[in-house]
């Protein structure tokens, strides 16, 4: 190369080209992910064969499925020895699966309406971009839903709602003086109102009255949804309060919270449900009794709250001490620093944990079937499978129950992933 010059000048610039066929699109993906080595190629074919055999084995069962039959025997007759599912049970017992077997069929529109409105009530809570004014409906919704599902005069709900409003107004009014006094006054004011309101409601119990449906008549998936939603919604604030209490500098508050959390976490949910069902009644004076659903709800809320408290505590511990100090140093008081600085950050860290626990809680609502409440699983195990008409249709029923829960829980987990990404924007 001695005679040649080392200098070089490009005459024409190289224009942009697309990558070779083997390096783009689907082909590249398949090559890199399915056939990147001999072993992976073998694994790909084994997996494909495995998937194929499952589909081939299961397809006829689904495709031959009978959707229209009155009993399991009619199903078998229609199938005529072929393998096939008997989905007719879902069709025929649909109302029972969803509403339980005692809810008056003329009133099905009420839970339907309540569950549609639930979406509207949850929307502004779940999506921050929606106008904040919609939260007013979320605040009213619990009372509205109670009236829709349990029936009775609307005055009951209105009175309960007004009691809460009075409590909040009183708290706002007195909170500048002292937190404890404000809480005490608002509790007293609300209870006084509820007593007065109770008399007024008793006198006019036919105003906008819907047919009364007692708690023991609720059932089916409606019951699961009801228990799950309420328990999760109540347990998140309670769990946060417990987590903060556990960090408190005041020893008595701290010990109460620690004892509560450790006790509830140390006991299986089923045990708590049995306590709610049987033992709790011994603690009330004879003649008075709390509604069974209410007792179960209290236990589920406590249970979930104890777990959420530990998740939130993890989030609080993950924050650097500097955040607490910075909040203190600019003069924020405890409530303000928690509300604006500590909790927004700690809760963001805790989202996966809270969702994990809450999805578990949604599914655990089916445990109430063990204390003879007729939720979705209770309906299947009880009235449906033990009827002579449908004795023996296990796969279809439990499969359907699994599918319903999967759809709900999967959506919840997708939502939480979306939320995490939304909140992630403030880092880098």
């Amino acid at each position: 190369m001695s005679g040649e010059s080392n200098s070089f000048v490009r005459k024409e610039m190289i224009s942009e080209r697309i990558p070779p066929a083997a390096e783009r699109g689907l082909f590249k993906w398949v090559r890199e992910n399915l056939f990147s080595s001999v072993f992976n190629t073998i694994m790909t074919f084994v997996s494909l064969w495995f998937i194929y055999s499952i589909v081939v084995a299961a397809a006829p069962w689904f495709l031959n499925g009978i959707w229209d039959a009155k009993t399991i025997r009619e199903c078998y007759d229609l199938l005529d020895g072929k393998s096939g599912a008997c989905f007719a049970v879902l069709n025929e017992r649909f109302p029972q699966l969803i509403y339980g077997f005692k809810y008056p069929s003329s009133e099905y529109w009420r839970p339907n309406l309540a569950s549609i409105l639930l979406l509207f009530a949850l929307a502004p809570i779940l999506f921050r971009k929606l106008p904040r004014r919609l939260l007013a409906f979320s605040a009213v919704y619990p009372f509205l839903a109670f009236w829709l599902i349990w029936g009775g005069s609307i005055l009951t709900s209105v009175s309960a709602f007004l009691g809460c409003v009075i409590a909040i107004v009183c708290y706002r009014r007195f909170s500048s003086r002292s937190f404890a006094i404000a809480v005490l006054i608002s509790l007293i004011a609300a209870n006084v109102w509820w007593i007065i309101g109770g008399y007024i409601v008793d006198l006019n119990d036919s105003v906008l009255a819907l047919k009364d449906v007692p708690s023991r008549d609720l059932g089916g998936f409606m019951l699961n949804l009801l228990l799950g939603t309420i328990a999760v919604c109540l347990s998140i604030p309670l769990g946060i309060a417990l987590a903060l209490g556990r960090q408190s500098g005041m020893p008595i508050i701290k010990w109460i919270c620690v004892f509560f959390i450790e006790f509830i976490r140390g006991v299986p949910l089923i045990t708590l449900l049995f306590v709610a069902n049987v033992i709790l009644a011994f603690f009330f004076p004879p003649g008075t009794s709390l509604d069974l659903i209410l007792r179960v709800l209290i236990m589920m809320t406590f249970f979930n709250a104890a777990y959420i408290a530990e998740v939130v505590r993890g989030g609080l511990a993950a924050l650097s001490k500097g955040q607490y100090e910075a909040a203190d140093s600019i003069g924020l008081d405890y409530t303000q620093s928690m509300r604006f600085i500590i909790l927004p950050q700690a809760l963001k860290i805790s989202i996966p944990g809270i969702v994990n626990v809450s999805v578990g809680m949604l599914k655990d609502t089916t445990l109430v079937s063990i204390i003879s409440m007729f939720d979705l699983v209770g309906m299947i195990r009880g009235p449906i499978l033990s009827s002579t008409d449908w004795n023996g249709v296990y796969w279809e029923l439990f499969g359907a129950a699994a599918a319903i829960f999967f759809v709900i829980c999967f959506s919840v987990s997708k939502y939480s992933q979306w939320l995490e990404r939304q909140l992630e924007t403030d880092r880098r």
Partner: protein
Amino acid sequence: MAEKLKLEVSDEIAIKVESMNKWFGSFHVLRDIDLTVNRGERIVVCGPSGSGKSTLIRCINALEEHQTGQIIVDGTELTSDIKNIDRIRSEVGMVFQHFNLFPHLSILENCTLAPIWVRKIPKKEAEETAMHFLEKVKIPEQADKYPGQLSGGQQQRVAIARSLCMRPRIMLFDEPTSALDPEMIKEVLDTMIELAEDGMTMICVTHEMGFARQVANRVIFMDDGQIVEQNEPEQFFRNPQSDRTKLFLSQILGH
């Protein structure tokens, strides 16, 4: 070296610490501290690590609790009364070594949060104040960004602006430049010098001896939890009295 700052110091007492003691468990961190700071004074506290200098200024806004003795800030004595503590904290600004900005809030929100909720200033006005101070620390264009998007020096200047938005009468600096890359130290020191020129009462824990010479009217040397020597910067650097001070100065100025 820049010109020495000449500023008048008033007779009014801003901070008075009297025979104050503090223990961490059984470890005696601060021993019989006596310190009086007049309004308008700029004090630099230095000393080897573990000598208690950070703890001292953290006691002044009650981030640490002292066990015996008295601390009077702006005429209010620091006791365990939470109302007094909150009042003093809103009058005393603090800048930390690690900035401690709130990562989930924008720069502007970082600066307006306390004025809105503690001082009860209308949002609009608080934002104007915040922009004023962000301009003062020369980063108004970053107002809508988040702390994670800023460099260390910028973050520390935001932290200073955040404190200033509360219109404090006293500023405490806890090693404000120790966590910064060398090329960013100057921008933060310049901000602090400007603040001193405005007559702010400042206590500054730092190892920036150039800053001490230029700005401070008193340098305090601490070792083993006690004030070993204090003097005007000229005297302090040229003619240290105690052996500990001499050793310390030879170590940090020796290279």
